């Protein structure tokens, strides 16, 4: 795969996901080395959150049909695991930080009970030990007066504090892989910077890998080693974030980048239209209907994801 490391923690191949008749993910390949940070970027409907949720095993068979493989080092294919094994992995080796912490914390339970229940279940700590560990964890994510905050309900904390609590819960059992699903999009910019720094520092300190789901390319370039650009459930381009974003080869990556506002941007040139509805999705490259460089074959024939010098690209007519 496109990873540069010899020792991948996770490698996903041919991940295809159907919800009803809709193919939400279409043959997604990606891999991730130990200690690496990876950004999944794309616009809404790209399937970036779905990848995270699927890899956490949070989708029930009634909700989605999953094909493909996801090898986690030391576990084998995740999609072949029984539910019992999954719930062992979740909160243990796999953890997740959600987009809106205010909604991801149960309003009816205190912060302490939601944090200690993980510690007690996963690490087998006693009541007092779990409490002490919880205080340490809250302290380590930058929450002042941690002992008192244990008895607070989520609504009594600010958005930034709620997200810190989520990070503390996710890191409670030193996961190998942390999914961060738009962890800052509900927050103000100065708080966003705090949270991104916190997640990066904490995962780095633990040697954990991290998959960020982001819509902000600039933020992805700042926080992640590698990047995967998705459009309507297909991987368009992947590689080191510096290379991909500095010299995009896929027309979609280039267009996406050209829409990002920077201070002093003179004129934006967005692609016309929007993501087509599912019924009108091209059978081949899904970006074909909006692509300025589309060839006749693009709409009917899906370009393979080809590897070249640590970068991957799925395009019949790259730049």
């Amino acid at each position, binding site marked *: 795969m496109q990873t540069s490391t010899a020792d991948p923690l996770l490698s996903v191949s041919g991940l295809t996901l159907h919800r009803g008749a809709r193919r939400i993910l279409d043959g997604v390949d990606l891999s991730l080395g130990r200690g690496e940070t990876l950004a999944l970027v794309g616009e809404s409907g790209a399937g970036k959150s779905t990848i995270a949720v699927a890899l956490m095993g949070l989708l029930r068979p009634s909700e989605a049909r999953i094909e493909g493989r996801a090898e986690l080092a030391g576990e084998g294919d995740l999609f072949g695991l029984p539910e019992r094994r999954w*719930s062992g992995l979740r909160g243990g080796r796999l*953890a997740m930080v*959600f987009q809106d912490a205010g909604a991801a*914390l149960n*309003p009816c*339970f205190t912060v302490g009970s939601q944090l200690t229940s993980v510690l007690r279940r*996963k690490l087998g700590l006693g009541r007092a030990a779990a409490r002490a560990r919880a205080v340490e964890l809250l302290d380590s994510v930058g929450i002042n007066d941690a002992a008192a905050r244990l008895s607070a309900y989520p609504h009594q904390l600010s958005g930034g504090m709620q997200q810190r609590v989520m990070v503390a819960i996710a890191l409670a059992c030193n996961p190998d892989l942390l999914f961060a699903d738009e962890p800052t999009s509900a927050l103000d910019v100065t708080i966003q910077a705090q949270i991104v720094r916190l997640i990066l520092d904490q995962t780095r300190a633990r040697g954990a890998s991290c998959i960020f789901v982001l819509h902000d390319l600039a933020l992805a370039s700042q926080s992640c080693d590698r990047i995967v650009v998705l459009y309507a459930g297909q991987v368009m381009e992947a590689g080191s974030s510096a290379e991909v974003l500095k010299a995009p080869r896929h027309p979609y990556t280039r267009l996406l980048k050209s829409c990002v506002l920077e201070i002093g941007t003179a004129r934006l040139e967005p692609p016309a239209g929007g993501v087509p509805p599912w019924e009108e999705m091209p059978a081949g490259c899904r970006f074909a209907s909006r692509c300025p460089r589309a060839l006749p074959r693009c709409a009917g024939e899906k370009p393979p994801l080809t590897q070249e010098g640590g970068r991957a690209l799925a395009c019949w007519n790259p730049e």
Partner: protein
Amino acid sequence: MLLMALKKVLQTVFVLFIVSVASFSLLKLAPGDPVEIMLGSEYSAEAHAALVRQLGLDQPLVTQYLDWLGNFVTGDWGTSYIARADIFTYAFVEALPVTLTLAAFSLGLAVVLGVPLGVLSAVKKDTAWDAGAAVFALTGTAFPSFFLGILLIWVFGVKFGLFPVMGFVPPWEDFWGGLYHMILPALTLSTYFIAMIVRLTRATLVEVLAQPYIAAARARGEPGWRVVWVHGLRNIAMPLVTIIGLQLGTLLQGAVLTETVFSLPGAGQMITSAVLGREYGVVQAGVVMTATLFVLVNLAVDLAYPFLDPRLRPR
């Protein structure tokens, strides 16, 4: 929080005041002259005038209302002319406990059966199980209870002779006997509530289970049963308790019918026979009792909100 509670209590007192005025007007608006009814068909003008004075009917309405309220609060609810009994004893001491017993049994049955059924239906959403529960819920909420009672009497009482079809045995005197006599009435009355609770539990739980905090609970490795029964159920407690409180009225009016079907000497039967016998004092007692019960239970529900949902607690 205490202030909030005080405010709610005040509102309740005011509502009770309106209810009392309405009940008082019931007596005033009722057709027929109560004095004539008391005196029978033959009476002298003097006797009539004397009784009017004795009853205070010559006083202004406000005075009459205050007198009536004073008597009512102190348990002097007048006399049932036909039953020749004290209404307070008749209504409050004899009839109400029967109704309350029936209502309590039925509500208990409804919660014990309805919540788990609703949870199962929500968890197994869009399966045959769920469809079956939905059909039951719809039929159960629409089915007329008095007809259901007759059907149960016919099947279990007449055809199989399994259960008694009438009579009341106070469960505080003979618990098992009381239970035995209560089975068919409670089943009749609770069918609607089981169905309603199944529906409500399913609807609210489906919504709750789609919330990010449920996904988050699963993402930190909480086992499936805990996610549903602890995280899910805790969050539907408030709508559940609210609706049960609001549906208490339906429970009480269902009790009226059920008591008639099973000839239970409760408040419902009391009211019905009083209407037929034009005993407005008794009707009034029944109305005031049910309304007060309803208002007080809903006050309790209101006051319980901060305990059910921490978001309603002050910071």
